[in-house]
């Protein structure tokens, strides 16, 4: 009797282990996100989107790759919004956690150096939100889910020229951060191409962590520009916009895709109402799978997903699509990473919640941009769509 019992337990244990072994196969994906630092809301909303997708996929039985079924296993690392921490987090994810691929970092300041690490370790990386061209340049293993600044800048230039009849422009940007720096220069190039040399009459800089911009904004107000372009993150935009108004600036202010993430309206209030910015998607008036995503996200977290959440969602789904297309993983991390990379590069006409995308040879998608207006209720209202 006793022997039978022991035997039974052993058999049960072995069966359980086998079942667990079969079910316990997991796809380890790393996330390199800014959970602290200047843009914590960006990290927060990325994580929310990722967790929602994980629940959905695992709830539906996991990801089927070839003959095997895998559960998703996400590893989150904080990059503190610093370039060096992003690289360290990357190394940790790749060598220590042994992830198959990496989503993030979000901001270009971290994505550019972290992309170098991912590429040299031959690990596929998709940055959902980094628009600086250098992130993917000459790096076969690095991809992104958003459009690029050389595309976004002319969109903004054409918009201010047609909408406000702007002939002269002013720019203020953080010279120590890759994203504002790159985009400001792209904007200047595009504006001067359209309106002639010297049409950007004020090109003012500051450095990260500055809070007083009065000297630069005084120059801008006195410069006789028709429009002010501010390619900054939501932490600095309220300070710049408020101080500009305090110094007597009454003309339009144009923003970039970094405005839409985080608590811009909570920090900025009435000063930002009526301003425009370019972005990746507009939640107001969405249809189809985009609406489905927005509804589910709002029901779960009680607020409308921002562009970072939507792009992170798309980035993970792109990655899963590529993994599925490999038709079976070998278990050898290096070969699997290469297989995933090759499949990512082949993706065509992918239907994301932020639009349709196909990849170019540099790992950048071809997709449309949206111009939104901040209306009197503080919502981001769809205004115009611009496609390449």
């Amino acid at each position, binding site marked *: 009797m006793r022997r039978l019992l022991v035997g039974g337990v052993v058999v049960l244990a072995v069966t359980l282990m086998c079942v667990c072994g079969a079910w316990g196969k997991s796809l380890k994906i790393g996330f390199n996100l800014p959970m602290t*630092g200047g843009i*914590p809301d960006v990290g927060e909303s990325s994580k929310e989107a990722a967790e929602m997708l994980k629940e959905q996929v695992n709830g539906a039985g996991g990801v089927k790759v070839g003959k095997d079924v895998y559960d998703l296993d996400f590893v989150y690392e904080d990059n503190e919004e610093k370039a060096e921490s992003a690289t360290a987090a990357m190394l940790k994810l790749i060598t220590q956690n042994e992830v198959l691929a990496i989503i993030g970092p979000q901001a270009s300041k971290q994505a550019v150096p972290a992309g170098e690490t991912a590429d040299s370790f031959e690990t596929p990386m998709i940055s959902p939100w980094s628009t600086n061209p250098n992130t993917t340049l000459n790096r076969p293993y690095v991809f992104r889910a958003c459009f690029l600044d050389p595309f976004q800048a002319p969109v903004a230039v054409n918009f201010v020229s047609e909408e406000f009849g702007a002939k002269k422009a002013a720019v203020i940007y953080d010279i120590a951060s890759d994203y504002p720096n790159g985009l400001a220069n792209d904007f200047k190039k595009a504006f001067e191409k359209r309106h002639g040399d010297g049409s950007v009459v004020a090109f003012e800089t500051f450095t990260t*962590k500055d809070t007083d911009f009065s000297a*630069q904004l*005084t*120059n801008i107000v006195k410069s006789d520009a028709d429009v002010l372009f501010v390619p900054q993150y939501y932490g600095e935009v*309220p300070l710049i916009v408020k101080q500009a*108004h305090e110094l*007597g600036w009454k003309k339009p202010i144009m923003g970039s895709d970094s405005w839409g993430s985080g608590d811009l309206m909570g920090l900025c209030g009435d000063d930002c109402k009526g301003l425009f910015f370019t972005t990746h998607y507009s939640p107001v008036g969405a249809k189809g799978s985009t609406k489905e995503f927005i509804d589910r996200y709002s029901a779960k977290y009680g607020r409308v997903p921002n562009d970072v959440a939507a792009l992170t969602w798309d980035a993970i789904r792109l990655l899963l699509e590529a993994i599925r297309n490999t038709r079976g993983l070998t278990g050898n991390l290096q070969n699997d990473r290469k297989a995933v990379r090759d499949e990512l590069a082949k993706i065509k006409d992918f239907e994301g919640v932020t639009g349709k995308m196909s990849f170019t040879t540099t790992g950048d998608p071809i997709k449309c941009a949206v111009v939104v207006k901040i209306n009197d209720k503080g919502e981001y209202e769809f205004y115009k769509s611009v496609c390449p």
Partner: protein
Amino acid sequence: MDHFLQNLLNALQWGSFYALIALGYTLVYGVLLLINFAHGDIFMVGAYIGFFVATFLIGSYSYHIPFGLPNEVLFVITVLVTMVLTAGVGVTLERVAYRPLRRRGAGRLYLVITALMAGLILEHGNLALLGASRRSFPELIPKVVYQWGGVVVTNVKLLVIVTTVIVFLLLEAVVRKTKLGMAMRAISYDRFAVPLMGIPVDTVIVFTFVLGSSMAALAGVLFAAAYPVLEPYMGALIGWKAFIAAVVGGIGEIRGAFVGGFLLGFVEIFVAAFFPSTLRDLIAFFVLLIFLSFKPTGIFGVARSTKI
């Protein structure tokens, strides 16, 4: 000319914050010969306490104060309550961190290191407690923009500048005209002989911390009114710069903190106005370095231990 005047006003506002914070450094240094590196973070704590007091007063926490007071009055109440609460934080810091060391006769170096540590604890305590999200200070004073010719000034800007000048004059009066001020100066003159005269040294030191921390709180609330985005690390950089301003003015000298603060504000704003901003800190601190190499004790400093 307009351009110059406008930047002069910008510099006066920016310099005011340096001056207010530098006053706190200088008071503590004058009495204790302690460089209280946690002072910048006390300024941050002041801004955050001000934020919570202000949002409480305007009824963000399911409680409404009954009288329906106008916002300007609420702002004054916010400032006063914040000064009291932040003074409490400053005194607690002195009790917990500095006094035990002082009692055991630890050297000044250890006190300075403790101060650096206390600052980090305040920053990261805030980060752990309240999270990394930024907060927006409520606009209690409705913004009014005055325009004279090409020069634009807001009521907040005027308030900041005028308050700083008044606070400086008040502090001068306290230190020069009152008994407590005399005791402070006496301690800075000879810390070991003073207790023998029956002066309660600990009380005077606590009083110094109360004064210094409430200055920081005032600066914090005014800063939040002028730049209404709060984050846990907001005190670090401005604190260091204000310390440098205090040294350039002659640390331990109230007039030195005032002049040094405005000097730094002027240099920074005018460099940013006429040069690329990457050069701002470089040029600003180079100018200060030259000042110090000609007068190492600062503008008002004398090479003696008696100051304030």
